[in-house]
């Protein structure tokens, strides 16, 4: 394991954007009230550059922070752990659309894990009621995250790459 997590200072500063965006929820980015899954935009380029172990650690940290913001009984940590590790395994991406596809898949994984927790917890109540709402959220997030990732994640990738060159391990 390397120490890019600590050395990569400016990258970590940009990390602050994730909780800020999660709190802000700019309405012009939303479709039917659903927002893109913000942490994926940051996690994808960061994990690609820093490898699976760092991706796993940062995924865990983001998950904990987002859980503390949303303060409910469900957790986003498992989804972000999987995504961080998986994105780290992929290595450099050649094409722009790959960012979009990966971000969409990451959003799908996180959304499904969250939805599963919701269903399990409300199993006795009436989970049928939750299906339309859950599917709307998952597909809304997949669409928006996949749409914006080729722009936002690539910008972040370039920013992290420059930062890595300035602060080599």
């Amino acid at each position, binding site marked *: 394991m390397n120490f890019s997590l600590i050395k990569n200072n400016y990258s970590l500063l940009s990390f602050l954007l994730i909780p800020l965006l999660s709190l*802000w*929820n700019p309405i012009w980015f939303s479709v039917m009230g659903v927002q893109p899954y913000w942490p994926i935009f940051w996690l994808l380029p960061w994990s690609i550059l820093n490898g699976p172990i760092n991706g796993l650690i940062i995924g865990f940290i983001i998950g904990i922070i987002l859980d503390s913001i949303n*303060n409910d009984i469900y957790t986003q940590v498992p989804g972000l752990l999987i995504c961080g590790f998986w994105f780290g395994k992929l290595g450099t991406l050649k094409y722009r659309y790959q960012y979009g596809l990966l971000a969409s898949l990451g959003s799908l994984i996180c959304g499904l894990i969250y939805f599963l927790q919701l269903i399990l917890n*409300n199993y006795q109540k009436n989970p049928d*009621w*939750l299906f339309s*709402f859950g599917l709307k959220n998952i597909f*809304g997030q997949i669409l928006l995250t996949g749409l914006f990732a080729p722009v936002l994640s690539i910008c972040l990738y370039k920013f992290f790459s420059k930062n890595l060159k300035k602060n080599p391990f």
Partner: protein
Amino acid sequence: MNKTRRITTSRWWNNKNLWFLLIFLFLIVFVRFSKSLIYRDIYYFLSKPFWPGQFQRELLLESYDKELNTKLKQLEKDNLRLRSLLSLKKTTDDLKIDSSVISRNTGSWWRKIILNKGSRNGVTIGDAVVGPGGLIGLIDDVSIFTSSVKLLTSSESQVGAWVQRINIHGLIVGVGNDSPKMIFYSKDIDIKVGDLILSSPASTLLPPNIPIGIIESINQDSRPTTTANVQLLANPQAIDWVQILKTKI
């Protein structure tokens, strides 16, 4: 003596146009068949200041208002006494905190809003939050400067409510969309679309009788309960200012 014959052409109606005659006749007919509506209406306004019962009527209304106010005060006192005996929630006007919405998440997994008043302003977990129209949720988390509101539409939200018209209690459960469900734990109840839903007077979480919403549609087929979709009166997506109701037992 010879009587001279009058010259008919000298009569005035012979000199006027025929139209004049027609209009005159029409007016006559109108006045006859209008049954003096215009006169009566004019008379209504002219005689209004001199009506005999006006002053007495005002006196009666005033005394009736006084009587109702006395009854209301007495009932409020009784209500507070009984609620304190049952350890239920109550609010007073001096325990309302105005607050603005600084973060809004109303359409995704997390249906919450964040307010700019926190523990230093006296906000505590469990306080009810109302917007223009009615209840929007309960405070579920408080920091020094902010507080987070769990909206009624959240899938984690459950509050007691009642339909005042038929005096039936139920539970409003958030299902993640904009229309929460109301569950009535009995069948064959006389709820109707459009019935007003208020917070339950028997609730230990909420102050009584805060407007919540109206029945949007009813699902009688659900077993063993009756469920209804509720249209909330206050729309959290469009609210910028809210009031936090401090509750006390």
